[in-house]
């Protein structure tokens, strides 16, 4: 007898849960909600937590500022920020949840290119509005994706010509042995060719490797004018300490070190001495918007006093949320197609990376950003100073590929091998 009651109870309970679930869906599905819903999927734990948590924190800063300032068109922003834990499976699961259950109006998600490529097919299937903000290898021409971080061509294109000018034309490339590192190394070759320099050696290093004696030895043997380093991850960070200890003092250009994982603050000097990073943002860049009292850096640390660093991608999340705000205000709705059209109307924003009076521009055709790029040098005490800066346009998709999302609906990633002989 008791068993039957239990079973009936169980059924009743199950039914009520199912009804509640449906009710929830019905509520969520209604387009007449009075808040704007954003999904913020950034790693707060796991392998990418060190670089991902500043993105998460800066996103929340932008949202809080906008809400305190009256929201977007009078609507407050509501956000969902579950932790994807640096796992691509979890990213896919959470992206689905954001779209199906939370019905978000726009999504910011993911640190690595592998994560982006994991969720992009689903984003495209659902024709969502997705912002990918990490600096990356470039080439994504996708109607639903706004890749607002700088591309390899923009980052390397700022630092490589500077180093050729300063030190000479012979380049040695070391890069992480996966998609991003391989494509970045191709870009080094393309840029070397454009700047009358040559790559005299290159080595791709497995992500699990953390001992660099033989790599250091090979670089010394080749004796280049400078090294281009696209090393990635915590294991590879050990390279900088080991090369300093081995007495390798050749200048190093990089698109990956310092601006993301703040190695110049984490490692003992002089590990990062004479390293030049080509970046659109680091917390040290000397713009008034960034460093003044009450500037970007101050506001970030006011909200997050214990945060260790404000990195490149954090700024990208921050300004792209503001660009989204401008687009929604212009469109007068959160309807994703209309917001995309507004984003494709030449939205600009006075981002912290740009000096006073200058706004960075979201390019309508490519969904990429023409960034204000900086070459930042660390000295032997790890003080970082700007040695060069200028606006560098995204040219690969715009000019070389001819991607035009305003007239053609594409969902593709192009690589330099398709267009450059040197990259083959």
């Amino acid at each position, binding site marked *: 007898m008791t068993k039957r009651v239990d079973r009936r109870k169980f059924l009743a309970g199950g039914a009520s849960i199912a009804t509640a679930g449906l009710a929830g869906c019905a509520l969520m599905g209604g387009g007449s909600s009075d808040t704007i819903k954003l999904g913020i999927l950034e790693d707060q734990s796991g392998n990418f937590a060190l670089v991902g948590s500043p993105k998460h924190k800066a996103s929340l800063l932008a949202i809080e500022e906008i809400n305190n300032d009256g929201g977007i068109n009078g609507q407050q922003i509501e956000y969902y920020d579950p932790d994807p834990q640096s796992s691509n499976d979890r990213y896919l699961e959470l992206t689905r949840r954001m779209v199906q259950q939370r019905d978000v109006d726009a999504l910011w998600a993911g640190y690595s290119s592998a994560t982006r490529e994991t969720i992009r097919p689903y984003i495209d299937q659902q024709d969502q509005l997705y912002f990918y903000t990490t600096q990356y290898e470039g080439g994504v021409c996708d109607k639903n994706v706004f890749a607002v971080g700088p591309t390899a061509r923009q980052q390397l294109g700022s630092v490589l010509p500077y180093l050729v000018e300063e030190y000479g034309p012979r380049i040695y490339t070391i890069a992480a042995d996966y998609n991003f590192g391989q494509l970045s190394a191709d870009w080094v070759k393309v840029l070397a060719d454009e700047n009358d320099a040559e790559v005299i050696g290159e080595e791709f290093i497995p992500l*699990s*490797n953390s001992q*660099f004696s033989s790599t250091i*030895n090979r670089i010394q043997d080749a004796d280049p004018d400078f090294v281009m380093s696209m090393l990635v991850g915590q294991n590879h960070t*050990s390279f900088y300490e080991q090369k300093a*200890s081995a007495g390798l003092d050749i200048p190093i250009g990089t698109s990956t070190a310092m601006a993301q994982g703040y190695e110049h603050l984490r490692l003992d000097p002089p590990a990062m001495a004479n390293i030049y990073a080509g970046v659109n943002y680091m917390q040290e860049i000397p713009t008034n918007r960034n460093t003044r009292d009450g500037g970007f850096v101050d506001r970030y640390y006011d909200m997050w006093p214990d945060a260790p660093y404000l990195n490149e991608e954090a700024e990208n999340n921050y300004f792209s949320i503001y660009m989204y705000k401008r687009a929604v205000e212009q469109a007068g709705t959160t309807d994703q197609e209309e917001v995309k059209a507004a984003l494709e109307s030449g939205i600009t924003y006075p981002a912290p990376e740009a000096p006073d009076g200058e706004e960075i521009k979201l390019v309508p055709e490519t969904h990429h950003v023409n960034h204000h790029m900086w070459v930042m040098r660390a000295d032997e005490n790890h003080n970082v100073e700007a040695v060069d800066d200028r606006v560098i346009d995204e040219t690969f998709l715009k000019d070389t590929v001819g991607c035009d999302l305003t007239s053609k609906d594409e969902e593709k990633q192009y690589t330099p091998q398709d267009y450059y002989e040197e990259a083959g």
Partner: protein
Amino acid sequence: MAPGVDLLVQFFPSFAKIVLAATGLAIIFGIMGVINLAHGEFIMVGAYATTLAYNGALGALPLVPVDPIGVLPGAVQLPAAMLTGVLVTALFGLVVERTVISGAVPNWIAERTIGRPVVKPMYDRLLDSMVATWGISLIMVQLVRNLYGNSLNGIGIPFGQFSYGNGLSISTYKLVLAGVAALVLLLLYVVFVRTDYGMRARATIQNEGMAKSLGVDTERTYMATFALGSGLAGLTGALYAPLQTIVPGMGGGFLVEAFVAVVVGGASVVVGTLLAGGLLGFVYALFANVWGTFAGRIMLLVVAILVIRFVPQGLSSLVERIRDRWAEVS
């Protein structure tokens, strides 16, 4: 360019890494039949304890009036911090052994509450021990991340560099590590051949039942062995703390070397690890130097495959066979 000298110099750091990564694992596997998949995390504990101690964390503990490492003269601060790392890891290993591997603590409690033991010891249960220690490794990585964040500020690499001509140079510390690795093997030899513990440990490997009936407390031997293996993993972490970024997942970087060396070396801890370190160190240095890191790491795995195919008991079994043949001849 002198490829001979170059190769010789590059041999030392790879020999050191392989030997130091493998000894702790080899001892626990060889004597207890436990595959410790948390070996990398034991190394991580050693590195964390060393780094924290070096940066003055001991002084912040309750009941400690002054930082005991901070009051030491500068030159011995790092060795003292490393010793702390070794001891902390050995102690940690002891706790893991009592609670998970042998199950002595949960059994002690269970016998007094529900009247029967609940955990069967992990000794010689290869697959079970892998699952249990893998679980430990997952817990440890996240626990350390929760406690200490995503990374610790590191220790500078001591000593400076050693130049060997033609613009080539290497961090002196990496050469010192090779000396330490050789010393560790020598000490292990002495421990296993000259001490009572070593004799009991060898008796336990050969025939546990017989050893027990002759009065060897095998459980105590296992406990000491696990602590010794853990302490050696801690030493590896301590020695590599200055060279590496201190992050919760750092132990993973030692696993390939450690497991390949144990497979290649075979059952005998000292002879096996020495031979494996020598062969693999040479192969890695040669290929990494000429064709790059990637080729070096591929060749480590190729050597492992060849050894499993042709000398499945490992290089140390080869030595035993040769010794037996000599004994027959003479």
